[in-house]
């Protein structure tokens, strides 16, 4: 069990993205998270590490999964957790965000977890607030805790990252999960492939040192890990993809497509899943290949590790 006066792990008092972390930071966070996996499986899951600390979950976008994961992580470490869901009017976003920041600052939180629909929101708040800020997803920019929990899941199963072939498939264009994951996995020595129709690939994606594939067969060939992304409903009705049925036919993960991956390849999904759109149910529910439930468990552990690490820099 770590103690409040343990050695600092992170150089920054915020976690805004994978950008800014070093491979050493990541390895240290993953190592620390291992201890919280054990704690989460114990009968008494609670410690007093963050006793007296206040954690605010500030969510401008609804997210049951991430918000409850942070809430549980904070509570298991003994912090007081407050959830705030904010619906913004798009007209005065910037103003509202700054206003919200100064209001929150006056409440003197120790750690703020923020999810916002606009890229750069977490960074803006980190400059305005006195507390630690954790980015729980900002627009299509970063979702670092998701990438870290994915990394923890992969490392626990395969033991390493070096040389692993990871195919990230689906709506890369709008995905902060994809951006954080490709940063982290590339940094740790994995070979990342992005697989998507051209409408869902961001411009100059090839500049990120990844392989680009528009065909699942070539993209999944020999892959160790197949990471599926969620396709938002409003993007599958003609704007980016003509229909859900066409998307599933060409980009949905089914047995036939998975068959070209490495034997024993593992499947991941950040959730929530669209069954029959990006992933077939029989794969999602197959505990032999699907890591989806494990990802959720690792999510709590990695967030406890992050809270622990950031709290070491708090006054």
């Amino acid at each position, binding site marked *: 069990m770590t103690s409040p006066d343990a050695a600092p792990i992170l150089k920054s008092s915020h976690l805004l993205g994978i950008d800014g972390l070093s491979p050493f930071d990541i390895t240290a966070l993953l190592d620390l998270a291992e201890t919280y996996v054990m704690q989460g499986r114990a009968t008494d899951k609670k410690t007093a590490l963050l006793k007296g600390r206040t954690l605010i979950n500030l969510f401008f976008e609804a997210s049951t999964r991430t918000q409850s994961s942070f809430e549980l992580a904070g509570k298991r470490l003994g912090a007081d957790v407050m959830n705030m869901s904010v619906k913004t009017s798009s007209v005065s976003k910037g103003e509202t965000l700054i206003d919200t920041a100064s209001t929150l600052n006056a409440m003197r939180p120790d750690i703020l977890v923020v999810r916002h629909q606009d890229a750069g929101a977490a960074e803006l708040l980190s400059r305005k607030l006195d507390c630690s800020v954790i980015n729980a997803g900002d627009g299509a920019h970063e979702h670092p805790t998701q990438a870290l929990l994915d990394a923890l899941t992969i490392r626990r199963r395969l033991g390493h990252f070096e040389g692993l072939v990871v195919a990230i498939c689906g709506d890369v264009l709008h995905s902060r999960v994809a951006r954080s994951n490709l940063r982290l996995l590339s940094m740790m020595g994995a070979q990342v492939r992005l697989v998507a129709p*051209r409408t869902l690939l961001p411009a100059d994606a090839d500049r990120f040192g990844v392989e680009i594939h528009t065909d699942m067969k070539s993209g999944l060939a020999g892959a160790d890990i197949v990471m599926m992304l969620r396709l938002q409903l409003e993007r599958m*009705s*003609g704007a*980016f*993809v*003509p229909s859900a*049925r*066409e998307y599933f036919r*060409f980009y949905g993960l089914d047995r036939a497509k998975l068959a070209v991956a490495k034997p024993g390849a593992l499947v991941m999904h950040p959730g929530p899943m669209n069954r029959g759109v990006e992933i077939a149910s029989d794969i999602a529910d197959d505990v032999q290949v699907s890591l989806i439930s494990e990802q959720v468990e690792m999510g709590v552990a990695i967030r406890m590790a992050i809270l622990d690490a950031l709290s070491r820099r708090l006054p």
Partner: protein
Amino acid sequence: MISARSGRIAFRNARLIDPASGLDAKGGLLVENGRIADVGPRLFNDAEPNDPEVIDCRGLVLAPGLIDCRVFTGEPGAEHRESLESASTAAASGGVTSMVVMPNTDPVIDEPSLVDFLLRRAAATAKVRVLPCAALTRGLHGETMTEIGLLKEAGAVAFSDGDRSIANARVLRRALSYAATFDALVIAHAEDPELTLNASATEGEFATRLGIPAAPAIAEAMMVERDIRLVELTGARYHFGQISTRAALNAVAAAKARGLPVTCAVSAHHLMLNELDVGSYLTFRKVSPPLRSEADRAAMVEGVASGVIDAIVSSHEPQGADTKRQPFAAAAAGSVGLETLLGAALSLAHEGHASLIQVLATLTSAPAHIFGLPTGTLAKGAPADLVLIDPGEPFVVDAEKLHSRARNTAFEGRKLQGRARATYVGGECVFDAR
């Protein structure tokens, strides 16, 4: 109905013209099991073929069957104007063995099941090959892209909104990106829809004298130039279904020079007619885009001669008395053309603008290349889609003698030279006027 014929047919004493290989020589050709089994200048020289069917071509041109890349029919939805069966009869008599049919039907061909329907109907009723072009956007509304992957699997050879432009650049950009994912061919109609709203003619002195609502010719080049930018961004294979102005021709030439995957076609009527041919409000010469100035028409001839224009198409568009017997502005646009395509195109050879093999290339090997078809060639092993042509035969276009169900030809009374004498699809004779 096309069925592979098991019999052998020996064509002897022909002038073989195969633009795909550059062959233009006297010789013979052997058809076996619906495919070209042998071909060459020396074939049947030494010995008379002893095949069940021997055709003495008497020096007439034997070429690959024509591929018409732009045909509108009325099936489904307006079979009273033209069905696949009647269009294919017209095609066969015009030497056309494959026709790309546009999706502007009722219902619009924007569903995989409708492509399947078209192919089944064609198999049951059509004399020539029917290649469905599916809609690029649902309902041709220019808003949401169609299921390009599924439609292509169902048998669509290309994607187009037919005679409509996609006004919204964001929609077209995404549709092109998506099409590029599947290496699908997109066919454009290049006319700015707002500039050409309600227009029936090309803006200029003639339209002003007649008082017809008209649109500036640049409405075409504007869209061609915009589309070329989007092709450069997305990498999609793009074919301008028909161009009609020098400005558009120059834009396409520049795009090709930059190595972009762009091709274009011109309609027979834009090669042969200019705006003055509308005369006293002849609605049969109201076409889309409208007939252009003589300078633009001459540019089209030049474009074919230089090779910038890849293909010549009929833009066959059947209309009935109900839609054509109207005041000019109210009349529907379009002309039938399957039976006049060959004669109109050959006028370029007769007038010395291009060689015979060059003109035939625009009707055979070039379209086959654009659409990735196995036809359009006399190569051994290729499907035996053939046309026997008398390139010098003069005739006067008579709407009453057309095989097409619709008779709205823009070439009525026009003297043309060069006709199909016999047409074969997959080795089966579908038209014979020998």
